[in-house]
C-alpha cells in the first residue's frame, strides 16, 4: 500500500526528471527531450496521487498537505502544457522550482495524517472544486513569476502573462462558483462572507484589475506587475493565510484543525 511514507521517493524522482526537462527546455536543440521529461515528471507525481487516493480510500484533497500535493502536480501540468503549446522557455524552470518548493514543504511539514472525511466534505462538488482551484493557483503563480521576470529583465512578456492570466482567472472563476453552488447545497447560502470566501473574492478582483489594466492599455508594466504580486499574496492569504487569522475559529472553511 502506497502512503505518505513513500512520498520522498516519488518527489525526488519527480523533481530530478522535471529539472532535466527545465534545463533542456532552455535550448531549442533539446526541445523534444524537454517535453518528454516534463510530462514524465508530471506522470510520476500523478501516479503517486492515484496510489495515495487508493490507499486513503478517499480523495486526497482535504488536508493542507494534500492541497499542496495537488498544487505541485498542477504546476507541472501547466508548465509542461504551456511549454509544449507556446514554447515559453522559462516556464518549465519556474514551474519546476515552485513545484519542488511545495514538495519539500510537504516532506518537512507533513500536515497530512488523517484518513477521515467529515460529512460536510462528502459531496460530488468536492473533487472539482479543489482540483480546479489548485490548477488555477498554478497558472496564476506562473503568470506572476513571468510578469516579475519581464519587469526585472526588461523583456516583453505581455502575451505570455496575459495568456496564463486568462487561463488562471477562468479556472479561478469556476472554482469559486462551484464553491458557491456547493455552499448552497451544504450550508444554505451561495455566499456568506466567510473569511476564505472574502479573500477568494479579493484575489479574483485583483486579477481582474490586472486584466483590465492590460485591456485598457495602461502604460506602466510595473503597475500591472505590482498588482499581480499583491494578487498573488492575496491568493496565499485565501489558500492558507486565513487559517492564521484570529477569525479562523469562526470560519467554516478550516478542516485540518
Amino acid at each position: 500500500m502506497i502512503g505518505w511514507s513513500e512520498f520522498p521517493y516519488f518527489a525526488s524522482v519527480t523533481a530530478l526528471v522535471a529539472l532535466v526537462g527545465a534545463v533542456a527546455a532552455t535550448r531549442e536543440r533539446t526541445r523534444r527531450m524537454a517535453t518528454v521529461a516534463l510530462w514524465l515528471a508530471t506522470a510520476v507525481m500523478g501516479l503517486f496521487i492515484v496510489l495515495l487516493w487508493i490507499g486513503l480510500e478517499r480523495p486526497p484533497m482535504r488536508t493542507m498537505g494534500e492541497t499542496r500535493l495537488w498544487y505541485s502536480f498542477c504546476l507541472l501540468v501547466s508548465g509542461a502544457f504551456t511549454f509544449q503549446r507556446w514554447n515559453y522557455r522559462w516556464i518549465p524552470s519556474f514551474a519546476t522550482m515552485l513545484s519542488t518548493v511545495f514538495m519539500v514543504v510537504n516532506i518537512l511539514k507533513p500536515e497530512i495524517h488523517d484518513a477521515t472525511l467529515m460529512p460536510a466534505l462528502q459531496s460530488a462538488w468536492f473533487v472539482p472544486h479543489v482540483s480546479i482551484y489548485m490548477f488555477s493557483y498554478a497558472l496564476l503563480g506562473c503568470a506572476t513569476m513571468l510578469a516579475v521576470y519581464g519587469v526585472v529583465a526588461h523583456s516583453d512578456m505581455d502575451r505570455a502573462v496575459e495568456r496564463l492570466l486568462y487561463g488562471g482567472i477562468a479556472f479561478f472563476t469556476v472554482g469559486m462558483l462551484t464553491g458557491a453552488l456547493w455552499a448552497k447545497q451544504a450550508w444554505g447560502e451561495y455566499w456568506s462572507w466567510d473569511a476564505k470566501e472574502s479573500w477568494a473574492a479579493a484575489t479574483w478582483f485583483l486579477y481582474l484589475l490586472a486584466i483590465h489594466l492590460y485591456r485598457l492599455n495602461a502604460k506602466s508594466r510595473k503597475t500591472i506587475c505590482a498588482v499581480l504580486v499583491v494578487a498573488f499574496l492575496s491568493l496565499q492569504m485565501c489558500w492558507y493565510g486565513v487559517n492564521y487569522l484570529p477569525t479562523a475559529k469562526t470560519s467554516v472553511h478550516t478542516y485540518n484543525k
Partner: protein
Amino acid sequence: MKISVSRYTLTSLLLAVAVVVAGLVVGELNLEIFAFPVNVILMALWLVMIVELYRRRQSVVVARYLLSSQATIFSLVISVALTIWAGLQAKPATTNFTFVVALLFVMTQVAMVTLRGWRNGGGVRWLFLFSHLGLLLALSAGVWGAPDSAVLRMKVGAEAVCEAVDVAGHKRYLDYDITLSNYKVDYYDNGTPSEYRADVVVADKSVVLRVNEPYSVSYGEDIYLVSFDMADKARPCVLQIVRQPWRGVMVAGVVMLIVSAVLMFLRGPKR
C-alpha cells in the same frame, strides 16, 4: 468639453470619503423596510436611471464618468477594498451603509458598461456580455434580494413544531409542521463523525435529511440538517430553513459567469 484625469480621480476620492463618513453616521441599514415590493420598485427605478444616464451619456458628466476607464479601475479598486475588509472580519457588516452604497456604485458602473457593450453590438462580444451581465445578476440577487431572504433555525423532536427563530432572535412561524421520527450519527474508528442522518416528517411527507442533502419544501425554501443537540432529549435535531426567493437570479448569474469562464479559457486574450 474634456475632463482631465485628475478631476475624475479627485471627485472619486472625495465621493469615497463622503460615503465612508456617511456610513459612520448612518451605520447599519434596517433591511426589513426594503422587503418586497420596496426592493423591486427601487431596483426598477435604478434600472430606469441607468438607461436614462446611458441615453444622455454625451451631455451628463456622471454618465461619461461612469463609462470612463478611470471608473472601471475605481470600481475594481472598491471591490478589492470591500472584499479585503470583509476578509479581516469574522462577521463583516454587509448591511452597513458604506458597504451597500459602494456595492451599488460598482453595480451601476458595471451596468453602464454592460449596456454600452450590448449597444455597441456589431460583432456581439459574447465573452464581455456574459461575464459582465453574469456578475451583475449575481450581485443583484445578493443586494436586491437580501431583504427577502431569511435563515431560520429550529429544534425538532417527536412532537410536531412550526416555530423557528431568525438570525436576529425573533420568533417566526412556518406554515407547515416538522416532526422528527428517527436520527442516527455514525462515527469513524477514531471517533470523528462520518454521517449525520435525520428522518423527519415535513407537512405529512417523510423526508431523509443529511449534510449536503437538503430538502426543498418549495421554490426558494429549503430545509437543512445542521447538527444534533444530544443534551436536549425532547428536541435533539437542529434544522435550518433558508428562504431565498431570488435564487433563480443568482443561478442565472452563476451559469452566465461559468459560460464566460469557459469562453475565456478557450479563446484566450485577443489583441
